[in-house]
């Protein structure tokens, strides 16, 4: 009898791991946020795998952007204020807490500056782009980009994005979306106002210049925007 018990326990001991292996996925992965958000870095890049230099060349750089900006965008995709199906599928069922955690993660990330292809625009148009970015156009009531997006165009805390290192197609698409009302922000939607005042030629000039300008080595956003801001923005409310 004891022999039977022994035999059984030996057999069971041998079988148990096999049985649990059948029931449970056995291989573990490290519990890191990097691992959890691998879905994001496939397009937006990560320090270990920067975005491919070939390919669609459309996806915006998100590393180092202010967390407040990133969380606004993630929530905008979820709520339909921005429309890009792949992004909506990503964030559709995620909570505010998780989106904030993801936004903070990418805001502290540093990626090597992308290699840019200089836009082939006539010199006059590039100059018009630079002029609009640095000084705006008072006649059109368009403020300079640097008035809000930082003197070095690397954005400002807590929620204004940097404008360098972005593909030109992406910048053009955003202006188009603001004009068509398919990219919206919390009211007042300052960028929709600005986009509505710019001609398509001016948009081309701005995107061409911005996409050709190298990202500075230190791409951290400015600690704050210069107050008062030229336009009221729901995404970056004025301090009282």
């Amino acid at each position, binding site marked *: 009898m004891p022999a039977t018990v022994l035999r059984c326990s030996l057999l069971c001991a041998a079988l148990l791991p096999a049985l649990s292996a059948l*029931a*449970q*996925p*056995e*291989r*573990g*992965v*490290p*519990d890191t*946020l990097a*691992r*959890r*958000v*691998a*879905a*994001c*870095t*496939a*397009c937006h890049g990560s320090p270990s795998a920067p975005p491919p230099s070939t*390919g*669609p060349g459309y996806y915006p750089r998100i590393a180092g952007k202010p967390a407040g900006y990133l969380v606004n965008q993630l929530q905008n995709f*979820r*709520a*339909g*204020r921005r*429309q890009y*199906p*792949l992004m*909506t*599928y*990503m*964030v*559709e*069922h*995620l*909570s505010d*807490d*998780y989106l904030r*955690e993801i936004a903070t993660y990418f805001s502290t990330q540093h990626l090597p500056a992308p290699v840019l292809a200089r836009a082939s625009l006539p010199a006059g148009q590039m100059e018009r782009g630079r002029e609009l970015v640095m000084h705006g156009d008072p006649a059109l009531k368009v403020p300079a980009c640097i008035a809000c997006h930082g003197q070095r165009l690397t954005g400002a805390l807590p929620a204004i994005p940097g404008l360098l290192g972005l593909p030109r197609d992406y910048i053009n698409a955003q202006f188009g979306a603001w004009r068509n009302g398919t990219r919206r922000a919390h009211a007042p939607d300052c960028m929709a106002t600005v986009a509505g005042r710019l001609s398509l030629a001016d948009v081309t000039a701005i995107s061409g210049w911005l996409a050709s300008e190298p990202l500075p080595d230190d791409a951290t956003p400015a600690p704050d925007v210069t107050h008062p801001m030229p336009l009221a923005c729901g995404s970056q409310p004025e301090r009282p």
Partner: protein
Amino acid sequence: MKRIVFGALAALVLLALAAVLIAWPRADFIPARSPQAWAGTPANIARGAYLARAGDCMACHTARGGTPYAGGRALATPFGTVYASNITPDATTGIGAWTADDFWHALHDGVSRDGRLLYPAFPYTNTTKVTRDDADALYAYLRTLAPVREANRPHALRFPYDQQIVLAGWRLLYFKPGVYAPQPARSAAWNRGAYLVEGLGHCGACHSPRNGLGATGSRLSGGRIPIVGWYAPALDADHEAGLGNWEEAHIVQLLRTGVAPRGAVFGPMAEVVGHSLQYLTDDDAGAMAAYLKSLPPEPSPRRPGAAPLDDVMKAGRTLYEHHCADCHGADGRGTSVAGHPAYPPLAGNGALTMADPVNAIRIVLNGGFPPATGGNPRPFGMPPYSPVLDDAEVAAVVTYVRNSWGNTAPAVTPPDVNRWRAVPID
């Protein structure tokens, strides 16, 4: 002779009329237990809030980015678009002027306060099973929402589906009001599960095939969700959702957290878990699981299907090893974090091997995250492969996972993939 023909015809017409009268879906009035049943007491409100979650009312009665329950979400159907209504207690645009009896009439009989017949996109073929007591608690809860002035958008249905008389005919064929009748031979938990699944949960709205007139069958035998374009697996067949051979605890885990050792929810089911099922008590989720497991199993069909071509499988394997194996494992068994499911197994995963391959294709194209839930607040995500892989590559890798590690399913072709590249979200 003429007289006989005339008499026979008249008898036939009379018989048909009698049949219509007998089959006519009568309004079925059950009075409230007492005005206390729908009074705004904390207990009623809490129970109503729970039931509203169980019914996932919010999912349809809220537009993307809109105020919860203020309506406006477009439900695309083969017959046109139905817009969900505002069910906040605004007196002019919502249901603020409705009595508890009006609310019951809508939920149970599918008739609006003004007497209009409601379209069954509102699943009253299911909510008719809800008890008067639960309907009253729901009413008590909805009364506590902040009223939102948001006029209902008129439906955009094609002729003749926009005609009330056509809807009346549909109801004659497919609708009979009636509260769920417990089966005395079954346990209380089983009956509770059946009540939730067949009633408020309206699982059959997706998991039951729809006929040409949009009516669902009585069985949860699976079907492609029209327009939405995801395949809701059969819940009564082990070769699809396969609940029959799942452990009940794993079904509860899947319903309440969105992930389980044998799979994860995605597509429309991620929305259901995220908005609704994660809030159920363990007892209710367990009751649903027990009921679903008890459904008489549908035998696996013998699939003829030619084996996939060797070079497709070879290409699929190379792609799998490059893009998928790191998370799902070279052996397709998935991976976990500290014993908690991280990436679902693909081996033996019924979601991949159903005859209709749409889900597997769309998951590869779109990627995405399971829902963030109380039990899985920080889910692991899957990258979208539509920007990286072409149609032939997606077809190869999907064919590979459908035919590896013991899985068998028909091969997928590049045109199968292509049609899902550009589908609208809402």
